[in-house]
């Protein structure tokens, strides 16, 4: 038995959603792209705890979703669509990967990426995702 790689599951699942493809094509990343093309969606697992250690089965992953525009409105549309899809469709059985039992959302923050001049519009959302094999 192994715990689910939530980053991998989520990125693959989002790339397969037509609403996300319409907005960013396949630009859903878990690592920083070398030459970024915008808009894009970045997914990072920043923390995680198994709900029980024995058996190591049900796992909670804290995921940060970074939605980059284009313009600010496009970043907002991307993060809204992503959260809506997670809330409506993500919970359930994913063949050969595992089961998502719950998605709880945390803060939604507008924090432009000032690694760029001018700063790139970015909405950040937090989500707690519970999974088991």
């Amino acid at each position, binding site marked *: 038995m192994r715990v689910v790689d939530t980053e991998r599951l989520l990125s693959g699942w989002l790339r397969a959603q037509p609403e996300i493809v319409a907005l960013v094509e396949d630009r859903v990343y878990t*690592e*920083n*792209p*070398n030459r*970024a093309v915008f808009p894009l969606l*970045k997914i*990072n697992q*920043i*923390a995680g*705890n198994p709900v029980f250690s024995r058996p190591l089965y049900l796992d909670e992953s*804290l995921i*940060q979703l*970074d939605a*980059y525009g284009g313009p600010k409105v496009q970043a907002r549309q991307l993060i809204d669509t992503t959260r809506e899809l997670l809330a409506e469709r993500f919970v359930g059985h994913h063949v050969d990967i595992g089961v998502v039992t719950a998605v709880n959302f*945390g*803060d939604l923050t507008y*924090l432009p*990426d*000032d*690694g*760029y001049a001018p700063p*790139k519009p970015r909405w*950040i959302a*937090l989500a707690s995702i519970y999974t088991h094999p």
Partner: protein
Amino acid sequence: MATKVVINRKALQEFFVTDPGAQAGLAKTAKAVEVAVAEAGPFGSSLSWPWRRPIKHGWFKKSLHTRPFRGGFRVYSRDPFAHLIEFGSIKNPTYAPFRRVIRAFNGRINAKKAASSGEGAE
């Protein structure tokens, strides 16, 4: 026979604010949080592009401070670019030292939400 324990949060808060022993305990915990945040920050070789270049150590660590705040203590960074370490950017990975340490100390990141649901946040 089952016994129901009701926690008087107001009295508990009053105790933490006024009792010297509780304040000393909180100060010690705050210092431990500060040390843990420094350890959770970037270290070794850079994970941002270009990969594996050496990091100049000490800047983020030096920027961390602890001060009394609303009867407790606040751990914060004076680095104006600390948000790039915490939230990442398109060129930096998301190190999230503060949020990781909050989770490690069994804290809650969304404090307002936890407080409103009555689960306790501070």
